[in-house]
Structure formats: structure tokens, C-alpha cells
């Protein structure tokens, strides 16, 4: 494989180009011969799915922007006009709104994969931190997009979330006024959210380039967490990873199509089909489902400032996972205790999501506090201690030893001939 890893253009045109801009060589080394561990499972396809979804959101979003009007008096009806009068406008809009949800489905699967197989550990810390930055950018972009239809939930979500900044001591209120561009959520707020909602996806695309760059420096992790040592531990990106990713993107699109074509409003809130009315507060203000766990953490803390800090910490702490997790073993498959605590952690996040959708009263508050406590205890106490006390299972010597039948000699990669 190493013999093939340098791109040697055949045609004179490509030879001419390669001497001036080695872009074909970059593609060749990054997406054709790039070695990927042979034992990757389908959890590793979500990176490709996320790239696909980012592209899909940008394409649908740019066309939607051609028809949308960012003005408090016109925004709601301009979206209804997209639904009624623009050719396939309903399809673009439902693809974009459900696409946002499925973007988050994919990113959560991607994060779960990273945590389960310890993909954040040395030497992949920067890769992981870039991922947390990408997630934060997605959260901000998604939130601003939700405000644009200017329905009741749009308006009140914008009001609640921007008001969180008022918890900052001394400068909180001026910051909120500055964010709003006025003394309440209004037309300047909608305009700047629209502008930023258009800008941030390109920032995300830029950080994705860094994320992929960092990935290609250190190589992919794999279910054993043992680094590839020999050529037989890996296969070429194309065709192996390409065809596998393409297949799972197809499966993912089937799920997306189910929502877009048959239950397009299932993930939304009916109140967002009521035009924004600053004089009338909805009975329950709830964010989109993908923010519910963080919303539950925010509401679980009785003090507003501490609640906002907990909300931020719940995401920012993830960036410190490479150092909070003290174990040298990557994959949870070889860490029986970590595996159990981690699965409980994932269930806790789902539980928090449910509690975030419920009114903050009675038993729901108590449950949210218990689950919030576990969230932080897991990250700050259990993770550092586990690495010190846990007895891990013996690791395989190599990827090939883990997946190939004993005694099998290394075959030449069949893909070289394909």
C-alpha cells in the first residue's frame, strides 16, 4: 500500500496540474489509499453521514434563503408561502427542518461512538476538541434556525435562551440588550439571527476541514482501541470505507425520508404554527428535542447563574475528556466497569431529555436533579478514579489478531485489484 500511496498522474493534463497544484494527489492520499482499520463497525459511518448532512443542510438552506424574508411581520407568512407557492418548497423546508434533527441524531451517534471506544485519547485530543467545537457551533446554528419561522416557540425560545446571558453578574443586562439589538427580542434580533444562521454553517465547514485534517494526521481509532501496526491491520479508504459509508448513508436517508414524507411535523411543536406573539406566553416553552437534556440540566439548578454555568459546563467538560479519563485503555470493550458506568451515563442523558420536555414541577424536578448530579459525578469523579482502580481485560496484540482466525496469514488487500 505504501508503494501506491504517492499519486502518479498518467495523463499529461493531470501531470501538468499536479506540478502546479497537487490537489489530485491530496484527494488520492486522503480519500483513496488512506489506510483505515479493517475492523471498523457501522458506528464509524456517522462521520461520513455528518458530512453528507452538512452538505444537504447547506443546499436546502441556500435555496430556502432565496424565498425567506427575515422580518418580524413577514417571516411567518414567507415560510407559509414557501410551503404553498414555491415549487417543491414544502420538500425543501421539511428536508431542512427534519434534516436539522437528523444532523443531531448523527452527531449524538458520533459522540457516543467516540466516548465508548475512547477515541479522544492520546494522540486524538485535538481531533476530539475540534469535534466539541463543531457540536457547539451546531447547537448555536440550530437554535438560530429554529427562531427564523417566527412562530410562538421561535420567539419564546429566543427570549428564554438570550435571557440566560442576563445571569452574568454586572454586565448581564447590557449584554442581553446588545444581543437583541434592542430592549426586547424584535426585528433586529431576527435579522442578526438570520445573518448568523447563514454564516455559521460555513464556519462549521471550515472546522470540519480541520477535524478531517487532524483525523488524517493521527488515523482512525477502532473498536479494539489498539493502533494499526502492520499493513494487514488496515484496508484502503476506497473502496472499503467508501462503499460502507455510502450504504449506511442510504439507510440513514431511509429514516430521514420516513419523517420528511410521512410525519414531517412529528419532531416540531404545534405552537410554532402560531405566529409569534410577544403578548402571550405559551403554556410550556420547550426547545427542540435535541436540546432537551441540556435544558433539563439548566432547570434542575435552582440558581439562575449556576444553572447557566451547569448548562455550559455540561458541554464544555466534554472537551476535557482526554484528561478526565485517566485510563490508558481506549475501548470500553476492554473496560468492564467503565462500560457499565458509560451506558448508565447515556441512559441518564436520555432521561434528562425526557425530563426536559416535562413541566418543571414535583417529582420531575427531583428526578432531573438526581440525573444532573450523575452527569457531573460521572465526568468529574467516576472517570478519573476508574482509570486508577479498574482492572481491564487483556488487549489483543494487534487488530488482525482480534479479528482474524488464529493462524491466518495476511492476505494481500484484495482492494488493490478492484
Amino acid at each position: 500500500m505504501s508503494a501506491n500511496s504517492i499519486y502518479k498522474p498518467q495523463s499529461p493534463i493531470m501531470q501538468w496540474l499536479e506540478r502546479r497544484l497537487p490537489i489530485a494527489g491530496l484527494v488520492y492520499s486522503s480519500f483513496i489509499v488512506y489506510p483505515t482499520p479493517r475492523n471498523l463497525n457501522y458506528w464509524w459511518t456517522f462521520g461520513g453521514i455528518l458530512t453528507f448532512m452538512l452538505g444537504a443542510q447547506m443546499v436546502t438552506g441556500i435555496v430556502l434563503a432565496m424565498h425567506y424574508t427575515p422580518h418580524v411581520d413577514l417571516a411567518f407568512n414567507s415560510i407559509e408561502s414557501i410551503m404553498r407557492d414555491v415549487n417543491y418548497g414544502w420538500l425543501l423546508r421539511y428536508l431542512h427542518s427534519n434534516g436539522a434533527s437528523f444532523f443531531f441524531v448523527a452527531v449524538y451517534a458520533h459522540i457516543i461512538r467516540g466516548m465508548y471506544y475512547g477515541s479522544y485519547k492520546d494522540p486524538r485530543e485535538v481531533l476530539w476538541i475540534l469535534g466539541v467545537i463543531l457540536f457547539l457551533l451546531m447547537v448555536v446554528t440550530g437554535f438560530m434556525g429554529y427562531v427564523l419561522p417566527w412562530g410562538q416557540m421561535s420567539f419564546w425560545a429566543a427570549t428564554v435562551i438570550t435571557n440566560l446571558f442576563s445571569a452574568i453578574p454586572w454586565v448581564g443586562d447590557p449584554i442581553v440588550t446588545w444581543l437583541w439589538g434592542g430592549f426586547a427580542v424584535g426585528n433586529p434580533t431576527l435579522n442578526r439571527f438570520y445573518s448568523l444562521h447563514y454564516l455559521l454553517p460555513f464556519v462549521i465547514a471550515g472546522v470540519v476541514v480541520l477535524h478531517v485534517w487532524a483525523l488524517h494526521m493521527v488515523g482512525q481509532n477502532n473498536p479494539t482501541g489498539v493502533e494499526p501496526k502492520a499493513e494487514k491491520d488496515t484496508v484502503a479508504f476506497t473502496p472499503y470505507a467508501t462503499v460502507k459509508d455510502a450504504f449506511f448513508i442510504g439507510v440513514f436517508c431511509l429514516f430521514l425520508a420516513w419523517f420528511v414524507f410521512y410525519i414531517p411535523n412529528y419532531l416540531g411543536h404545534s405552537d410554532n404554527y402560531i405566529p409569534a406573539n410577544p403578548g402571550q406566553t405559551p403554556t410550556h416553552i420547550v426547545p427542540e428535542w435535541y436540546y432537551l437534556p441540556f435544558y433539563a440540566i439548566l432547570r434542575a439548578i435552582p440558581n439562575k447563574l449556576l444553572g447557566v454555568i451547569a448548562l455550559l459546563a455540561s458541554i464544555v467538560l466534554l472537551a476535557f475528556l482526554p484528561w478526565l479519563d485517566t485510563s490508558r485503555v481506549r475501548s470500553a470493550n476492554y473496560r468492564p466497569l467503565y462500560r457499565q458506568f458509560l451506558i448508565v451515563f447515556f441512559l441518564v442523558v436520555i432521561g434528562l431529555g425526557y425530563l426536559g420536555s416535562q413541566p418543571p414541577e414535583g417529582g420531575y424536578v427531583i428526578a432531573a436533579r438526581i440525573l444532573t448530579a450523575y452527569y457531573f459525578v460521572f465526568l468529574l469523579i467516576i472517570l478519573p478514579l476508574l482509570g486508577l482502580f479498574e482492572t481491564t481485560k487483556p488487549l489483543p496484540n494487534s487488530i488482525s489478531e482480534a479479528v482474524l482466525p488464529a493462524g491466518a496469514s495476511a492476505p494481500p488487500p484484495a482492494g488493490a485489484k478492484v
Partner: protein
Amino acid sequence: MNAHRSIVIAAALAASLAAPALQPALAQEAENPPKQTWSFHGPFGMYDPGQLQRGFKIYREVCSSCHSLKLLAFRNLADPGGPQFSEAQAAAIASSFQVTAGPNDQGEMFQRPGKLADYFPPPFPNDQAARNANGGALPPDMSVLAKARGFEVGFPWFIINAFTQYQEQGPDYIHGILTGYEEHPPAGVTLPPGAQYNKYFPGHAIGMPKPLSDGQVEYTDGTPATADQYAKDIAAFLMWAAEPKLDERKRLGFQVFIFLIVLTGLLYFSKKKVWHDIHHPEAAEGPRA
């Protein structure tokens, strides 16, 4: 044993989750309206043009005296996937409405019969006039009403609904409200002046008087002229008003599914073939290689 500790934690967490679920939700007051059968339910469900035409008749003769339908134009009545009036019928309906147009060369606004391109004229010139005529309550615009109303179904139904494609909370709610009036509120319930008791309305005190009674609107196609049937027909019409591209969406959806299933199937078998020698290294060394 350390391994047991995490199981204990998991059990405690599960209990803390289940506890609030056992007590009735405090914020939930109104009973959920019963599910109706809708022609537009499910992957192949489409609107019934006859039902939409009856629903339009009810909107015109009953609802339109208070409720606007601002986002719909008369031309929409002849759209495919709608009530499917002929263009001549839709134009005749349009011309029976007076719409405000202008200003003319003298700078005056004037009334003229509606055209296909005109939007349904609202019954009141503004929200204040609407409130003034309705005892302070504002009759909501009906253009997207069927998507703007719903009710919580709770766990596990909200998950089951994703599989059964239940998307008809809006029409079920509208049908429920229209048939949920009770002349005498339950003992101990006092209503504010001018309000009616409705068992499906959140808070039960609804400003709108009971709008539909048996025999109120004449049906010429043999459909029973009952309040229950009226409620179904107007709810279906309002669902179309809110989601006029539903038929087109489901038709395209079916084609997309066929395409995606074939494509994904081909990719699956491509993947299997490409990976075969990796998963079966012993075969690669044999004659096949």
C-alpha cells in the same frame, strides 16, 4: 464487588425516573379528544375531495363569519390535491365574495367581486374589530390552525405514533372541540360570563359559542347532515388548508422510498462483494484469488 455498584445506581436512577411518571401530570387538565378515522392518514392516505368540498361549505356558511383564512387564495380551491373544484366553479365562488381592491385612479379603495388570484377576505378589518365583535376573544385565523393545535399523548404513545404515522392531532382536536360542548358544566365548575363549557378545550372555558348543530348546513351528496359529520368535514378541510401539498408529498414519498430501497440494496450488495475477501481471508488464498 464493584460491578454490582453500578447496577444499584442504575436501579436507583430508573426508580427516580419512574416515580414522576406514576403520578398524574400536574399541568395536564383537559381530556384528550378521541381519534377519528381520516382519509389522509398513513403512507397512502389522501384527501377526499368530496369531504373537502363539504368542509368548504361549512367554512363558508358557518366559520367565515368570524374566522379569517388569510393564506388561502380562491385559485387554491381548484388545485390538485385539494377540494378540486373546476376552475369555473372556483371563479364563481371567488366572484361571490366582495374583496377590497385599489387604490383606483382617484386614490380610493373600492369593493369588487373576487377573482381567482385574490385571497379570502377576512371577516373583520383588524384584530381589534374582531375582538370587539366577539366579547373580547380573538377568533384565530384558520389557515394553519390544523397544524397549530395538538395535545400531549405522553410516553409511550409519542414513540408509537412515529411508527404508526399518526399526524392527525390537529384535526382530531378540532373535531373534539366542535363536538365537545356541554350545556351544563360539571358541578362545582363556574365559567366566566360569555364562556361555554367544552370538555376538550384547555381550561374548559371557551369563548366560541357551540357553532354546529344537526341539520344546520344542507348536504346535497347524501352525507348525513349531523354535527359530528360537519365537525369531521370542516376538520378535514382545515387540514388541507394547513397542509395543501399532502397528496403530492405522499405520492413523491412513495417514489423516493422505492428509489432509496433499491439504491441502498445495491450499495449493500456492493459492500458485501467489496469486503468479501477481507472478511474471508481463507477464501482469498484459494482459487478465487
